[in-house]
């Protein structure tokens, strides 16, 4: 087991390197950079930036160096000093902008994941055990619907309902008075009051797919021979259900959690933009539009790291749950 964990953790390292490289290259390779963008904007206003000034600016920002050198200095900064570079757009070190946003992203993603579990697991079990019941049909249909509605559309629709019927503007993660306020009990409760809507929006498609996964797997498990064997021992139906089929169906569920988490983090970007959440999404778009390269690269990097770590956790959880993995690979 120990060596399995170790090996799994070591596997993460190349993944992280690849992720950081991709994050950087996606931003840096396409033609045009931040200075071009500034010059363009200046040109729109009518004053032409002299070439020398453009070049000087490039040098100042280090944009004249070869890509790999830029990458190297950026990534060593990140790893060694926790320095994510400088945001041209904000005129601030990236890390000052990025951390609070990332924190909220993590909180929102985890809350959504929790929502998925709390809602989907019982429904999935119910649907499998009461297969072809009215309830099962309803949940199955809702599941399909949940997968078919783009989450930004769901966000829009819910916001519209809240706005048109309850007169509430439910965007954002905080009420206006708390946005700039330091952390405290008041801000915390305010966050909780705002969190549920994006949580539901982000969790919907995950919930739908988890219900389907659990239902499908559990239906397979319900008639496995070991269930008959346990029943023949005299075990009661509910205890039986929980100890054998449900427990067995947990494995594919856990290994699927990774994809769900990726989807939540990934979908969170768009929902955040639509709902004006103070998470990474809106800033990422802004940074990309402005070609604020360190900012954008850092966001993509940190989101990817979040996912890679999530994958690691779900793999470890799976190994902990499934002795076959534990003993055969460890």
């Amino acid at each position, binding site marked *: 087991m120990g060596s399995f964990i170790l090996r799994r953790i070591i596997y993460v390292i190349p993944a992280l390197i690849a992720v950081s490289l991709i994050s950087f290259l996606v931003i840096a390779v396409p033609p045009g950079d931040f200075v071009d963008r500034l010059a363009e904007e200046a040109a729109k206003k009518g004053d032409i930036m002299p070439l020398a000034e453009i070049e000087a600016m490039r040098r100042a920002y280090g944009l004249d160096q070869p890509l790999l050198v830029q990458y190297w200095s950026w990534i060593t900064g990140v790893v060694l000093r926790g320095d994510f570079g400088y945001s041209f757009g904000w005129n601030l070190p990236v890390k000052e902008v990025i951390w609070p946003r990332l924190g909220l992203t993590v909180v929102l993603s985890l809350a959504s994941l929790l929502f998925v579990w709390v809602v989907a697991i019982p429904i999935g079990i119910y649907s499998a055990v009461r297969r072809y019941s009215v309830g099962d049909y309803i949940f199955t249909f809702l599941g399909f619907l949940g997968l078919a509605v783009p989450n930004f559309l769901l966000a829009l629709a819910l916001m519209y309902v809240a706005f048109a019927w309850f007169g509430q503007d439910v965007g954002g993660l905080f009420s206006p008075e708390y946005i700039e306020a330091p952390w405290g009990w008041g801000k915390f409760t305010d966050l909780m009051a705002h969190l549920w809507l994006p949580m539901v929006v982000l969790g919907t498609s995950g919930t739908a797919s988890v219900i389907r996964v659990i239902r499908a797997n559990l239906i397979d498990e319900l008639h496995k021979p070991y269930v008959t064997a346990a029943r023949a021992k005299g075990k009661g139906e509910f205890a039986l259900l929980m100890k054998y089929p449900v427990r067995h169906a947990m494995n594919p569920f856990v290994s699927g959690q990774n994809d769900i988490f990726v989807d939540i983090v*990934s979908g969170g970007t768009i929902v955040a933009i639509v709902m004006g959440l103070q998470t990474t999404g809106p800033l990422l778009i802004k940074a990309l539009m402005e070609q604020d390269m360190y900012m954008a690269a850092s966001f993509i990097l940190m989101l990817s790291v979040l996912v890679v770590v999530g994958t690691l956790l779900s793999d470890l959880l799976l190994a902990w749950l499934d002795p076959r993995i534990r003993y055969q690979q460890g």
Partner: protein
Amino acid sequence: MTTFDETSGMVSPAQEKRRGQGFEGHWALVWRKFLRHRLGVLGGIIVLLAYVVAAIPDFLAPVTLEAYNPAYAYAPPQQVHLGVSTEDGWQFRPHVNAYKTVVDYNSGRRIFTADPESIIDIGFFVVGEPYKLFGFIPAARHLFGPVEVGQPFYIFGADRLGRDILSRTIYGARISMTIGLLGVAASLVLGILIGGVSGLFGGVVDNVIQRLIEFVQSVPAIPLWIGLAAAIPRDIPPLQVYFFITIILSVLGWTSLARVVRGRFLAMRNEDFVKAARLDGCGPVRIIFRHMLPSFLSHIIATVSLAIPGMILAETALSYLGIGLRTPIVSWGVLLQEAQNVRTIASAPWLLLPGVAVVIAVLALNFLGDGLRDAADPYAD
């Protein structure tokens, strides 16, 4: 009466009937099993209709894309009436009512109400604005529309420029439905190539490709898509944007297909009937195309139909954010751009109607894919 054919051990005529006489091939069995999946069939019909719409939007839409009329900005959907009641009783006469407008000086917006006095007749196969069917056949007939050209006809309402949302949604199908198809086609090529190589060579090659797939699958797609989409130069022609977006979607989309292909390849390689074919002396090409591919083609088709919805959703999201397709291209995502904030939506909720098209298309594709997946292996009972 049931009897035994003693020499052969064949059971009885009745049983043979149940087994479809044994004369049905793979695809016939797949088809029969698919037909039993009622939601799948329903989904299939809707998908088929959607692609028909995508093929001839000009004919189906009452007006063309160019049509606009600022006088009807944000006009709400008109109610369709099937007939009128006159002294002679009820009479079949499909029509909508024209609008009455008042300007609300507080908000500065026009308020539209239906004018029951003025009737705009709806006709079928009416002559309307001219267009070119399939891009080259000049035509002017529309499936339906106002009998008199130019009368306000907004059964899905109008947008900010007084354009007909119904017509635009119909045109949107052309892009939205095909971008999924193209994206999946591109992914499929990548997936079959990479998955096939992985499954065929095995060993280190397979290992490297598997790690690569795992890695690509663990990258959060949307931020990366956003990053890539934002890198598309702003000033290139729309058609190129369309292709760029397709490519971006398939960059991450090939992995699941590659997995399916590889898995099937590996499993198939060890099937006894493939071994038997090797012993018959079939070369690799014959084995792949005569024995292996037909066996998992149905699985691939099912996987493909399940992959298209993801592409449609992604395109919609990117376009909505303004970094995907842009006007003058009309896709459902582009149409949804009109619904940028809650206040706009609150005053013109019909702007979300193209979203309903997305939901229906995705639902139908999922149903279809589910049905195909169940039918892909008609031998398992």
